[in-house]
C-alpha cells in the first residue's frame, strides 16, 4: 500500500474541470508535483489534504480518507500556497498554538525547534504582519513541521524566497525525505524541481501528463519534436542544405528571411545549421526555439499520453 493513493480523482467547479481522472501512487521520500500555473496542482493538494471533497474518485493517505479525518490525527501537514497568516500573532505564538492543537505535550519547545529548523528567530516578538515574504513562507513551513507529520504537502513553498533560502529549503525537504517522511512539493519551475533530485509527477491541463524519475521526465521533454526559427540572408539555400543533411523533419518559411525547422534532435540540429550555413556562405542572424517554454512542454506531454 502506498502512502498516498489517488484513484480516478476528478474535481470540477461548475463547468471548469480542475482535475481530470488522476490516478497516482506516492511513497516516502521527496516527490515533486510539476505543472504550469492553472494546471490543477493546488486543487489536487487541497483534495489530498481533505480541505475539499473530490467530485469523483477516491483519496487515501496512510490508508485513510483525509476528508473524514482532518490531518489524520496529526500525521499529515500542509504548507498552503496562500499568503494569509494570522497577522496579529507572533511567529512563535502561531507555531506553538498549532503545536497545542496537534496535541504535542511541550508545545512551546516544539515550536522553538520547528522555527529554528527553518532558520527564523524564535525570540522575534514582531507580529506576522511585519514579516517579509520569505519569512512568511518559512513560518508556514515551521507550522507544518511542528507536529512531526509523516506526510508533508507543500504548495509552491519556494515562491518569494531568495536563492540562499531556496537552497536551505531544498536541503530541508531532502532531509525530511531521508528521514522516511513523504514530502510532496509542488512547483511550476522546472529548474527548482531538478534540484530536488526526486521523483516527479507532471500535471498539465488538469491531467496527469507524466510521472517518473526526474531524468526520465527530462529526457521525455527533450525527445519531443522541437520547433526552431532560424533567421538568415539565404533561407532557401539553408533549407536545402539542412534537408540534404537530414537534420530536420519538417521545414517552412513563415516570413521572408526566416526558416522554421522541426527536429527531434536539437543538439545535432544546432551543429548542422552552423556547419551548413558556413558551407553555403549564409549569414545567420538568429536561432531561436519557438516552443521551449514550459507550457509547450506540458502540452506535448499531455498530447502524447
Amino acid at each position, binding site marked *: 500500500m502506498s502512502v498516498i493513493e489517488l484513484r480516478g480523482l476528478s474535481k470540477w467547479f461548475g463547468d471548469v474541470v480542475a482535475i481530470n481522472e488522476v490516478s497516482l501512487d506516492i511513497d516516502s521520500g521527496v516527490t515533486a508535483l510539476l505543472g504550469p500555473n492553472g494546471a490543477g496542482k493546488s486543487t489536487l493538494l*487541497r483534495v489530498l*489534504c*481533505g*480541505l*475539499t*471533497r473530490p467530485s469523483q474518485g477516491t483519496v487515501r493517505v496512510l490508508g485513510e480518507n483525509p476528508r473524514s479525518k*482532518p*490531518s*489524520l*490525527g*496529526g*500525521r*499529515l*501537514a*500542509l504548507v*498552503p500556497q*496562500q499568503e*494569509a*497568516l*494570522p497577522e*496579529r*500573532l507572533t511567529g512563535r*505564538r*502561531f507555531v506553538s*498554538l*498549532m503545536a*497545542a*492543537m*496537534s*496535541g*504535542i505535550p511541550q*508545545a512551546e519547545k516544539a515550536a522553538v*525547534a520547528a522555527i529554528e*529548523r527553518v532558520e527564523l528567530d524564535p525570540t522575534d516578538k514582531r507580529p506576522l504582519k511585519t514579516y517579509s515574504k520569505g519569512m512568511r513562507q518559512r513560518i508556514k513551513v515551521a*507550522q507544518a*513541521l511542528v*507536529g*512531526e*507529520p*509523516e506526510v508533508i504537502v507543500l504548495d509552491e513553498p519556494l515562491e518569494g524566497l531568495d536563492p540562499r533560502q531556496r537552497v536551505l529549503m531544498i536541503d530541508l525537504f531532502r532531509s525530511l525525505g531521508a*528521514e*522516511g*517522511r513523504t514530502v510532496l512539493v509542488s512547483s511550476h519551475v522546472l529548474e527548482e524541481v531538478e534540484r530536488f533530485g526526486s521523483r516527479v509527477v507532471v500535471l498539465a491541463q488538469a491531467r496527469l501528463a507524466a510521472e517518473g524519475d526526474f531524468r526520465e521526465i527530462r529526457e521525455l521533454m527533450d525527445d519531443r519534436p522541437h520547433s526552431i526559427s532560424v533567421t538568415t540572408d539565404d533561407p532557401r539555400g539553408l533549407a536545402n542544405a539542412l534537408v540534404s543533411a537530414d537534420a530536420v523533419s519538417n521545414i517552412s518559411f513563415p516570413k521572408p528571411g526566416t526558416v522554421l525547422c522541426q527536429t527531434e534532435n536539437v543538439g545535432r540540429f544546432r551543429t548542422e545549421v552552423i556547419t551548413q550555413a558556413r558551407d553555403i556562405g549564409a549569414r545567420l542572424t538568429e536561432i531561436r526555439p519557438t516552443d521551449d517554454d514550459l507550457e509547450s512542454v506540458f502540452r506535448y506531454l499531455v498530447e502524447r499520453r
Partner: protein
Amino acid sequence: MSAPAGTIRRPGFAGLVAAYRFGLPAVLTKGRVIGAVALVLLVVVQFTALSPEDLNSGITPTILFLKLVISVLVPVFTVATASNVLGAAVADGTLVYPWLRPAPRWQLALGHIGAALTLTLPVAVVTSGGAAVAVGSSTVGLDSPAGRSLLAGALAAGVAAALAYTPLVVALGARFKRASTFAFVYIFLWEQLFARNSTGINRIAIQTYVRSVYYGFGDEESSNFELGSVVSPTTAWLVIVGLVLAGTALTALVVKGANVE
C-alpha cells in the same frame, strides 16, 4: 526531529485553549474595542438626553430606553463582533491552519465562540446593567427591592442575550459571507417587527427568552418594567442553554463541512 512515529495525537484541554487564543485576535481588534466603548458611551448619552419631565412622568420613556439596550443594541453589537470570529478566518483562508490539526471540531467551535464571548459578554452586561442603573435611579431608586430586581434582571438579560446570540452568529459567520446582513434582518424584521407582538410566533424569537429572563427577577412593583415575557424564567434559561449547545454544535458542523480555501 525524529523519524515518523506513526502515532495519532488527540489534543486535550490544551487544544481548546489554543483554539480560543487563535480566535481572540480576530475579536479584540482596535475597531471593535472602540465600538464597545462607544456603545457604552451611547447608553450614557442616550439616558442623559431624556428630559427630567420624561423621567418623572412615569415608566414609559425609561422602559423604552431599557428595551432599546437589551433588545437592539446588545444583539447588534453581538452580531457585529461574533460574525467575524470564524467568518474572517474562512474569508482570508487562515482557517486552514487550525482546520488541519487533529483538534476535534467542537474544540475549534467552542474556542472561537469563547473568543467572541470575551468581548460580547462584558459589553452586554455593562450596557444592560448601565441602562438599568440609569432607569432605576431615576424612577424606583436603586436601594428599593424593585430597583435591585431591575438591576439583577437587566444583568441577567445581558448575560442571556450574549450567550444566546453569540454561538449562533459565530456559526452563521462561518457559513455565510453576508452573515451580518442576515442577522440584522432577523433582529430588526423578525424580532422587532413580526415576533414581538404575535403570540406563538414570538416563541421562535431569541428576544422572547431574553426578556423572560429579565422578567424572572421582577417583583410586583418592578413588573411595571416588564418587557414582554412569554415563558417562565426556568424555561427561558433552558432554552438559552439549548441555544448555546445548538450554536456550538452548528458551528462545529459548519467547520467540519467547510470547503477550506
